[in-house]
Structures are given as C-alpha cells and as structure tokens.
C-alpha cells in the first residue's frame, strides 16, 4: 500500500470542490513517509546485519591463527668471498649481520642492502678455529682450535637509543631510515630518536683444554645462573674422542661487589675408541651433555654432579645407515632436534620412564617426526622465544617450522647453496638468513601464530616435559622459555560438565514444577508463582555466583553428609507422604484438595531437609566412614554404601517393573474391591515391602561390585575440592530453573483446553490426562524449553568464574572444580595482549561458544515454532 494510493486522483476529481482537488497529499507527508520507509527498512536490515556481523568479526579475528606465515621481502646480494665462515650473528632489529671465518676474519654488513661495514681480524695466532659454540643469545662465543686450545669472546651486536643531538657528524645514508658512519648503523625511530647498532668484539686469551694438542672438533658454550650467581659452562670434544666439561660458578656479593669464582672441570666417561664426534650439546645448567657421533649414535651424560659425570644412555637417534648431520636444542633445552643425512628432522624428548634401562631413569623418546627434507639437513637454528625452528638442506631449501604444531610454515630456496652455508633465525623470529661463501640471502618473514593448528587446539599434543600426549590449557607462566598450551578440549569439557550437572538438577525440578503448575496447582497460587519465576529469570548471576562461592561452598563443605542425604530423604519422604495421603478418608482428601495440599507438600520438603540436617552426621558415619571428604580420597571406608545408594532407585524401578508384569494386575484388582482407606494401607505396605526388597537387591549388587573390585571413587566421585561441580551444578541449576520452567509452562498451557476437557470427560483422572494427553502434545515445546535452558547454562559466566575453582582438568568428578569456555574468557581476556595468540585463542573460544549456543537455540527455536503451529491447529 503506497501512500500515493490515498491521494487517488479519481477520488479527487469526483469531488465538486476545485480547491480540494488541487490539494492532494501534502508534500511534507509524502517526504516523511518516504523517509520513514527508508529509515525503518535500512535500520531494520542494519540490526540484522549487525547481528550477523558479530559472527564474522569473531571469525575474522580468529582467522590468522590458522594462517601460515608470509615472506614479506627477500634480498639476495653478493659479499666478498669468505671460504670457511664458522659463525654468523644478527641483531634484534634486523639491522646488521656479522660473520666470522675459521681464521678469524670478521666482517659485518648491513642486512637490508648488503653494504659491507666493519672488516677486521680476530687474533687467532695463526690457528684455525675447528669448532664454534655460542650461547643461547649468540653474543658470547667459544672458539675451539686445531691445537687443542679454546678461546672465549664476544661477537655481539648491541643496540642503544640516541637522541638527534647525540648523532655523530658525517653520516652517509644506507637506506630510507638507516645512516652509517662506516661501522655502526643509525636507524631513525619514532619520537625523533635514533637507534645505534654496532659490533662489539672481545677475544680472551687461549686456554689449553686438550693437553695432547688434539684439535677440538665440537664445543658448546652456555652462560646461565642469576645476576648474583652467574655460571659459565662449556663442553668440548677433541679429535682423540675425549670429552671435557668445565663449569665456572661466580658468586657476586651484592654488598661488596667482590666476586669469587669456583671452577670445576672434569673429563666425561670415555667414549669408544675411534669415535667421530660431530656435535655436542649442553643445557644452560650444565646438567646434561649430549655427544653425537656422525653415524647417529648419541651419548647422553648425566652431569648433575660435575665432578662425577656418568654416561647415562647410549642411543641411536637416526635410522641404521643414516648419518646424523645436526643435533641441537630447541628453545627451552628440553627437546633435542636431530637432523639426518636422509633429510629427516625429528625431535626427541628426554623423559622419565618407569623401568627405563638407563642409569638415571630417563630415556630418549622420539616424539615428533617433522616433515623431512629431500636432501640432507645441513643447517638449523632455533627461535629464542618460541618452539619455532628453521632448517636448511643441501639443496638450499630453507624451511620455517614449528616444533609443537609440526607444521612447515614457510618454504624458500636459495640457488647455488652448499652444505657449508650458515643458517640463522633472527632474534625476533622475523628474518631468516642463509649465508653462503660469497653471498647472503635474507627473507623478512612474519609468522604471527606458528603454534596453533586445528590439531593443537582440538587434538592431543605431546608437550615438552609431559609423559604422554594430552589435552592441556595453560596460557601463561612466569618463565621465559614457557610454552603456552592452547587446547580448547579441557574448556569445552568443563562447559559440558557444568551444563550436565546443572541440568541434572534443574530439569527435573523445572519440568515437574511446570507440569504441576499448569495441571494441578490452584489457580490463585498459579497467578502468584508465575511472575515470581519470571522475575527470577532476570536475576543477576553475579549475585548467584557470590552466594555460591562465599555462602554455599563452605556450607556444603561442612554439611556434605547432610546434603547427600537430602537426595535420598527428599524423594522418599514425598512418596511416603503420598502413601499416607492415600490412607486419609475421601472426605478429608476432598476438603484438603488445592492450596492446603500444596502447603503440605512444601512442609514435607522442609521436613525432609530438617531430617537430613539432623541425621546428616549419623548418615555420614554409617555410609562414608564418618567423613565424606576423607572417604572420597579412597583411603578410608569402602565404596559399597555409596553404590548401594546409587543402585537403590534403579533396583526399585526394576522391582516395580517386575511387579507390574507379574502380580501387579491381580494386586490392583484386589485393591479395587477394597474401600479406599484400606486400599491405601495395603498399597503403602506394598510400597514399604518393595522398598525393603529394593534395598536388599541393591545392597547385594553393591557388595557384588565391591567383590569384583569396582570402586566408584576415582570416577564420578573423587577427592573433594571446596569449589566444585556440585556447587556449580546446584547454583547454575537454580539460575536456569526459571527459564526452563516458564517456557515449559507456556508450552503446557498452550495445549488447547478442549483436549483436557475431552480426556477428563472420558473418565481419565487429572494425572492420566496430564501424562497421556497434555505431556505428549506439549512434548516438543517442553523439549525446546530444556534446550533453551541448556543454551543458557552453556554460556553462563559469573557463577562459574566465582564458584567453579577454574581448574582446566578433564575429570567427571562431581567434587572437583572445572573451567568453562566462558569463565576462561572472562578471566584471561583482560590480561591478553591485543592480536597475540592468546587473544585470538580467546576469540576462538568465544566463537565456539557462539556457535554452540546458536545451534542449540536454533534447534530449540525451530522445534518451538513447529510446536506452536501444531498447538494452534489443534
């Protein structure tokens, strides 16, 4: 209906009044109408798009987690030929690189342009460096020589920030941002400041290590300890196959600045005759030394006691017939990278294994087989910050990988490469440098999230220091070499656990309450109950969380025995009350029907709680050896009484089934012939007899299970923690009861009363009508109500944050804590760095939650709409 239709010219022309005809619809009305049209349509669609936009935005933030890396730039340039470069270093800002040759020539060059800067000579006394070892940060270097001596030094690239005034005169430009005085590089940085990067060379006097004068073939060098107690350790292997370890510990007195150095040197247990050692690796604490032979055999020494090192294990880390080409630690020095001549790239952990046939109880275990190169692995460097690594092969392929996610993120190739090329990953993981004899290749790279793949997030991952693969969420720690562990599985599990326990509590109460309200409750009470429940729906959950954590959790901890008893006492006393009610004469029953009966029910509930409170300690003594919390640890008492309680309802149900199938019919026929009170008495006696029988049966089964050796502890019940799933289930159940209740009640109410009337008129009792007519008709609506309640429980945050203890564990134990997706976001997002891996992981958690609840709610909504349509048709 367009507005123009109202100013129909036909209508106007039929009027006799000329002026009316010309008036038409006022222009302002037309404009207003048009504008409203537009605004409302655009506004309406905008809201819908905004709503969809949330999902796309979350997905967009999450996206980069699964993107690989990017090569942002590649430069390749000629350098003066250097025959046997043995060492390369690069500064933190990708400004300059330095290389050192075996005879001591040192040349630095500007990384962006390849411009040569410093060219000088270290005084090696005419000897040739046959081995080089560098610390983790690469600035401190140890050279091993062909005469059995070792020299320590620094080939460091240092950086400092200068103001514009402090710049020296006569600088020439290197690139847009960089200036040089021929030696150092000055880079302009924001805030009118300059960063000076310069080479710092130090070389100490030679120390004789190998008395026989045999050449040093492999060396490793570490600096560690703390500021007050720095340690310097190095390990060498000489051409005679003798390995030596030296550890110097300096104690600096902070008051006097006096330093005392304690050097301990030892020769490692003899290696086999004629060994060709190719590499040696040592940890910063100098408690482990690995010596690798060219054929792939690795000797692992336990050097925790420097004075008495032992050969802990001899193991082949490459397949038979394959030479070992690279052995080095990954960042953290927990994992050993082994490169083979067949291109294999594997990672080994040293794990404490029960029954390991080694001296120290540890064993080398192959944990990751990374994608192999096609040619022998020749170069390796590990990241200083993460578990990333770069490897190169003899064909000049350079791969950027990540150890934990086992993925190859970048693959580049250098033409004309040789096996002697030196490979380096820049300190900030933002450049790969491959240094050849007469040239260098630099790839500027950006790999923001190498550690995450679908497998690391949703699959089992074998993290360093763990005995086996598992699902772990551990996002932060105080340690530099700590590896964040991002598995969403424990969080999703926690979400499911919390939801399960809360629905276990909420669904029976809410649905039963809803059925009673819609079918049996006195209308006057119904008018009061419904709004109260609706109001509880918008109760702030932070209030519930506070009650749960600070009031309920300590209370439950003290009264756990009584609480457990309530689960038994409440249903039993309600049913007992019902049987007593049956005994009452008909006239009394009719008089008390309605509100008084409901009040009686409430009184029974209160009575059973009081009973549980009084009998709680006695119950605990009888069933849980007097102390339920101690009982859950499995040290005292037996599992039989608990299994008895669990099996009681089951055996009662089974007995009822058997009874109904066998003599139930005959029994009921007899009851019908009696008058009502007498029938009530007989029925109550029958119930008591069956309860006793069920008790006997369940006790028999529980004992049987105990004899077989089954103990429930260690599964659904285990050690007690104050903030646990029981408390969360209870309070979160309390939070979703109003949701489920109101929706289910609406669904039951929507069943046309004609059905109800027809059923009652046919002689069915109200109970029969409710169970066989109303409930089946409203089933889909009731189901939708449960689904919506579940959706709410899945996303509930504050209760879980406050009352669940926030421990991300995979454990169904009702007495243990949990951590849900939502609580995890609330706890960790405020502390995460924008665009970091944790930040994006938390967005992924939010997206998972969004998708989970969206699915649940959509299913519920579709079912509900269908139900509405059906109810309407009835």
């Amino acid at each position: 209906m367009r507005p123009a239709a109202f100013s129909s010219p036909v209508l106007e022309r039929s009027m006799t009044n000329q002026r009316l005809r010309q008036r038409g619809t006022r222009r302002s009305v037309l404009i207003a109408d048009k504008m409203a049209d537009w605004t409302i349509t655009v506004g309406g669609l905008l809201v819908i798009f905004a709503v969809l936009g949330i999902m796309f935005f979350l997905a967009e933030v999450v996206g980069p987690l699964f993107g690989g890396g990017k090569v942002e730039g590649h430069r390749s340039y000629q350098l003066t030929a250097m025959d046997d470069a043995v060492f390369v270093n690069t500064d933190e800002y990708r400004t300059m690189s330095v290389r050192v040759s075996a005879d001591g020539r040192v040349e630095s060059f500007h990384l962006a342009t390849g411009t040569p800067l410093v060219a000088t000579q270290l005084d090696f006394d005419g000897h040739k460096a046959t081995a080089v070892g560098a610390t983790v940060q690469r600035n401190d270097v140890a050279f091993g020589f062909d005469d059995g001596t070792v020299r320590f030094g620094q080939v460091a690239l240092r950086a400092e920030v200068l103001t514009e005034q402090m710049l020296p005169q006569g600088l020439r430009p290197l690139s847009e941002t960089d200036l040089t005085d021929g030696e150092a590089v000055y880079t302009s940085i924001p805030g009118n400041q300059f960063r000076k990067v310069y080479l710092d060379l130090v070389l100490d006097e030679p120390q004789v290590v190998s008395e026989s004068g045999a050449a040093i073939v492999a060396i490793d060098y570490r600096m560690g300890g703390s500021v007050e107690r720095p340690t310097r350790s190095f390990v060498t292997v000489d051409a005679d196959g003798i390995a030596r370890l030296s550890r110097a510990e300096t104690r600096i007195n902070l008051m006097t600045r006096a330093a005392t150095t304690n050097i301990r040197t030892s020769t490692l247990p003899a290696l086999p005759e004629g060994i060709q050692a190719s590499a040696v690796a040592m940890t910063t604490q100098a408690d482990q030394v690995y010596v690798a032979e060219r054929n792939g055999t690795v000797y692992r020494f336990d050097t925790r006691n420097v004075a008495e090192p032992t050969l802990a294990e001899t193991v082949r880390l490459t397949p038979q017939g394959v030479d070992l080409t690279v052995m080095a630690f990954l960042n953290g020095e927990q994992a050993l990278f082994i490169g083979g001549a067949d291109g294999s790239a594997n990672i080994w952990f040293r794990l404490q294994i029960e029954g390991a046939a080694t001296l120290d109880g540890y064993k080398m275990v192959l944990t990751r087989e990374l994608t192999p190169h096609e040619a022998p692995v020749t170069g390796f460097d590990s990241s200083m910050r993460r578990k990333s690594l770069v490897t190169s092969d003899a064909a000049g392929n350079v791969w950027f990988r990540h150890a934990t996610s086992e993925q190859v993120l970048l693959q580049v190739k250098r033409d004309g490469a040789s096996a002697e090329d030196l490979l380096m990953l820049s300190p900030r993981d933002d450049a790969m440098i491959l240094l050849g004899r007469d040239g260098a290749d630099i790839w500027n790279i950006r790999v923001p999230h190498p550690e995450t793949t679908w497998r690391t997030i949703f699959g089992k991952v074998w993290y360093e220091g763990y005995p086996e693969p598992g699902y772990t969420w551990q996002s932060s720690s105080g340690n530099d070499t700590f590896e964040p562990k991002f598995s969403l599985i424990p969080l999703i599990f926690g979400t499911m656990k919390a939801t399960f326990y809360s629905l276990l509590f909420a669904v029976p109460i809410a649905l039963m309450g809803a059925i009673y309200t819609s079918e049996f409750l006195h209308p006057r009470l119904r008018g009061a109950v419904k709004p109260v429940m609706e109001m509880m729906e918008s109760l702030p959950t932070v209030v519930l969380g506070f009650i749960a954590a600070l009031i309920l959790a300590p209370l439950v901890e003290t009264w756990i025995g009584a609480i457990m008893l309530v689960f038994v006492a409440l249903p039993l006393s309600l049913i007992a009350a019902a049987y007593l009610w049956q005994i009452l004469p008909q006239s009394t029953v009719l008089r008390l029907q309605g509100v008084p009966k409901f009040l009686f029910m409430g009184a029974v509930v209160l009575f059973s709680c009081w009973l549980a409170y009084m009998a709680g300690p006695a119950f605990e003594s009888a069933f849980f050896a007097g102390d339920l919390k101690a009982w859950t640890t499995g040290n005292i008492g037996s599992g039989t009484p608990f299994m008895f309680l669990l099996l009681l309802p089951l055996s009662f149900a089974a007995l009822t089934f058997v009874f109904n199938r066998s003599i139930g019919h005959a029994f009921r026929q007899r009851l019908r012939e009696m008058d009502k009170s007498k029938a009530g008495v007989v029925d109550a006696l029958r119930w008591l007899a069956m309860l006793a029988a069920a008790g006997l049966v369940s006790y028999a089964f529980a004992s049987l299970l105990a004899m077989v050796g089954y103990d429930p502890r260690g599964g659904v019940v285990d050690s007690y923690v104050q903030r646990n799933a029981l408390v969360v289930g209870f309070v979160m159940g309390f939070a979703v009861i109003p949701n489920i209740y109101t929706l289910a009640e609406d669904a039951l109410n929507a069943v046309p009363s004609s059905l109800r009337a027809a059923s009652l008129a046919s002689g069915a009792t109200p109970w029969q009508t409710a169970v066989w007519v109303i409930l089946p008709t409203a089933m889909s609506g009731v189901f939708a109500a449960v689904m919506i309640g579940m959706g709410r429980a899945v996303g509930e945050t504050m209760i879980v944050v406050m009352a669940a203890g926030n421990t991300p564990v995979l454990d169904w134990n009702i007495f243990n804590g949990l951590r849900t997706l939502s609580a995890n976001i609330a706890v960790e997002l405020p502390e995460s760095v924008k665009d970091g891996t944790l930040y994006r992981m938390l967005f992924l958690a939010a997206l998972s939650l969004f998708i989970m609840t969206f699915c649940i709610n959509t299913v519920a909504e579709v079912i509900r709409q269908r139900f509405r349509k059906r109810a309407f048709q009835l």
Partner: protein
Amino acid sequence: MSISVEEKSLTGVPVPEVTAKPRKLRHYGTDLAASGEPFLWGLGGALALGILLILGFLTLIFWNGVTTFWPKPIKVVTLTDGSLVAGEPRRDDLYRVGAEVLVTLPEDVRAQIAAKDGYAHRVMYRIGNYDLYNEDFRWVPDFVVEKVETPRDFFFFERQEWGPFIGTIQKVTVNGQETDPAALGFAGITSEQERARERWRQIRKIERSDIGVINHEMEQIRLRLRRIELRQGADSPELHEARLQAEARMAVLQQDYARLAEQAAAIRAEDAKFSITLAEVGGREKEVPLSQIVRFYPANDMGLLQKAGVYFSRWGEFLGDEPREANTEGGILPAIFGTVVMTLLMVVIVAPFGVITALYLREYAKQGRLVSIVRISVNNLAGVPSIVYGVFGVGFFAYTVGGSIDAIFYPERLPSPTFGTGGILWSALTLALLTVPVVIVASEEALAAVPRSMREGSLACGASKWQTIKHVVLPHAMPGIMTGLILAMARGAGEVAPLMLVGVVKLAPELPIDGFFPYVHLERSFMHLGFHIFDVGFQSRNSEAGKPMVFVTTLLLLALIVMMNSSAIYIRNRLKKKFVNAHF
C-alpha cells in the same frame, strides 16, 4: 473393542473382562494407580522445592542486606587460657573439629564433641583492629570459652583506614591538651569528632576538587601543545607562540597550586592537635587522629533510637559517599552512578534500533521465509552468552572503532588510549547489542497486538502509512514497547560478564559526568554495582570483611531489578486488560 483399547491406554492396565461383567465396573472406584498420588507429590514437591529455594534465597539476601548496618553489641570473651577476645558476634555454626585440635583438648571436652558426632559449636567474632591483630575475624569454639560479657565502656570505631577499632577510650587530646574523656562525655567527644571530620572534608575538598581543577587545566595545556606540535610541526611559529602562552599560564597555575597546598597544610597542622587514644581489649593502646574516625558509638550502651541513628547514618554513607578500605567499607555512590548512566545510555541506544527493527519486521517486511529466518535468529540471539558480546565489544568497539577514533581525533594523547580501550560508551553499546533481541521481540509482540481494524481505520481515513504508524500504531503499542525496554534495562543492569571486558573497573578515579568540559566523558571507565559485588566478594583481601557490603550492594541491585521487572509486568498486565476492550 475400541472402548477397551481406549481404557487400556488411559489407565495403563488391561481391562479384559469389561464386556463379560459390565456391572463390576461401577465398583472400580479406588484405582490408586490412576490417581498417581506418589507422582503428584513428586511434581508438587519439585515445585515446592523450587519456590522454597527462591524464597530462601530472597530471604537470605534481604535479611543480611537489611540487618548489616544495624549496630551489634560487642562481646568480651574470656578464653580458658586467660586471653580476651572482644568483637561483634557475626555468625555461628557447627563445625567438624580437626584431629590435630582434638588431641590438645581435655578428656571431658573430647567426650562432649564425640557425643555430637565430632561437631562443635563456634562463633565468629569481628574483632577489628586489623593494624594490631592482622586479622579481622576470629572463630571462637564454645569449648575454649570461659565466660562472655557485654561491658558498657566498649566502643565501636569506624576509621577512615585500617577498618574498625573495637576497644575503650583512654584519653582524648583536644587542641594539643590531654583531656579526660569522662569529663568530656560521649557528646563532647562526638562534637569534637564532628569538627575534626569537618576539617578533614575541607582538606579533601582542597586536594580533590580545587587542586583537581588546576591539574586538569595543566593537562589540557600539555595536550594543546602536543596537538599543535603534531599538526604544525615541532618548530613552527604557532607552537612557539603557544608555548609562551602556556608557560605564562602555567606559572599562574603553579602559584595557585602552592597557595592551595599551603592552605591544606595549615588545616592539617591544626588537625594534628586533635587525637584520641584507644585501647584494645588486651590493653594495647593506639592513638588515632580524631579526623580519621568516621563514626563511633558505645555498642553496649545505646537505646533503640541511637541504634536507629547509627543505622540510618550508615545507609546514608552507603548511598551517598565514595568507597574506602578497598571498597569493603564506605559508600557505593560511584557504582550506583555508573550503573544508572550506563543503563540509560544503553536504553537510548537500544530503543530506536529495537523499535525500528520491530517496525520493519512487523509493518514493512514481506512476511515470508526470510522474515521467519530473521525472526528465529533474532529470537535465539537472545540466548547467545553475554560473554560473547563482551568479547565482540572489546575487539570491535574498543580496539577497532575506538582505535580509529583515537588515531583521527586524539593523536595528541597517544600512545595512551582515549576511546581505544574499555569505556562507558562501549559498555553501553555492547549491552545494547545484547539486549536488542529482547526489545525487538517485545516490540513486535506489542505491534502485533494492535488490532488490524485500527490500522485499517486510519488508512481508510486517508492517513499515510507513516502517519498511521506514528499516530495510531505506535501510541497503542507504546506500553508493550516500554515493557520490552524496561526488561532490557533490567537485564542490562544486572549483566556483569561482558562489562568486565569492556570498561568496568574496581575503582574509577573520575565519574563519567563531571564539571569539566565536555561534561559527559563517554570514554571513561566506570564502576558498576554488579562488578562491585564480584570485586568485593571475590577479589578483595578479605572476602569475609567484604561480605556485609556485598549483601547490601546485592540487595540494592536486586531491588533495582525487581522494581524494573515488576513495573514491566504491571504495564504488561494493564496492557492486556486495555486491549480486551480495544477491539471495535
């Protein structure tokens, strides 16, 4: 035959002899299985349990919230080992006595405990004097108590810092002169304390508002220079000129600052002459400046009227003052203010969008598959967890939109963010997004409830579509829309999880609305009642000390939300009645 099948399905019992002996049917009056009494009691019991839980919960909060501020007596407990404990009894319970305690007890006490299944009764006292004891509370089991007294000379002092002090008054120093407290009397000390508080308020006014104004202006000058520097360059003549002006102004401000600081110092020196020396139950003394005492009363020597006076004065402080003692004492005015401003802002945002969408869905869009899909998604968006909206809010509003706003409009303040971090505007927007489904659903229902005949009548009179909506449909749907908005407000006011991510803080230095241009500071972070509950109850040093505060805050928040909900339900019910007659 068909009858017997029907009966079977209804009673669950086969009735094989129906046709054979029809007379017997009449006697089947007592089929207990058909009435399902045990099941009925199960259903009714569940409902009763639910209602009892709700009532218990509300009573717990109401009782604790209402009684918190009522002055309680101070008990002095003599323990069996001769030591004394003085404090307000807070609560008592039965607890399981640990094995390591049991072995230290005499035989007869152990027997008593064993007779109670290993449980013993204990009372928790709020002993105060945190600066002396290093604890606020102490559990005293009954078996160590020798006797309990309520001495009349014990006072309860609320201090500006260190929490309450419980003890006796030893001496009072007035204007540097030691005075006998007995001669001064309670009234005399009270008037001295009130004068001291007045001085304290003066100092605070000088330091907060007067010096605050100066600091604000200095900051503005600094920012202006920075802006000019960014726009015109570091060595532009404009900057030079501005710098000269700024220096002149700064000098004036520095002078003002010095003068005010001097004033404050003078009052402080005067204030130092007034103090009170208190003694705790064990005899240790503590001298406290009189101005540091917020309130004090002889807990065991008060009439009902006096108690009521303390009670209402505490409520007054609670509702109208700032928090102290890491939020566990004092008032929550900033939190109330923040909650109200944020909620109102949210409604201002959510109302037009929600109503426009509802109008679109109900009046403009062609009812078809698309609209029903949209309706389903809007409906179940109400079920998306609030924390997800929080994540979206911080990622999109704060970092993306706010970051861009900072880069364009506030470059002089970078790298410290202005809009690029959590704030009240982003919180309101996030909550608006969260509550828009509620408003849409409610408004749609209200629009649908407007009888078709009214619309048609209006259109038939020649009104355009917009005129019809504006003058006929919307006014009639207004109560329903209002209901939706109020429900959205109730939901928004109680939501905490998303706010934790987008701008709520435990202690906001400045309110989002103040006397400095532009008066409304939407970028500021704010305090919130719900978050206050979380923070005090969960993150403070001593959650036990914060508990009363949390209960009162909870009561306030709950009252707010119950009020909003009841008004929504009331409007809805009135609306139903109105439309019964509205059909013509």
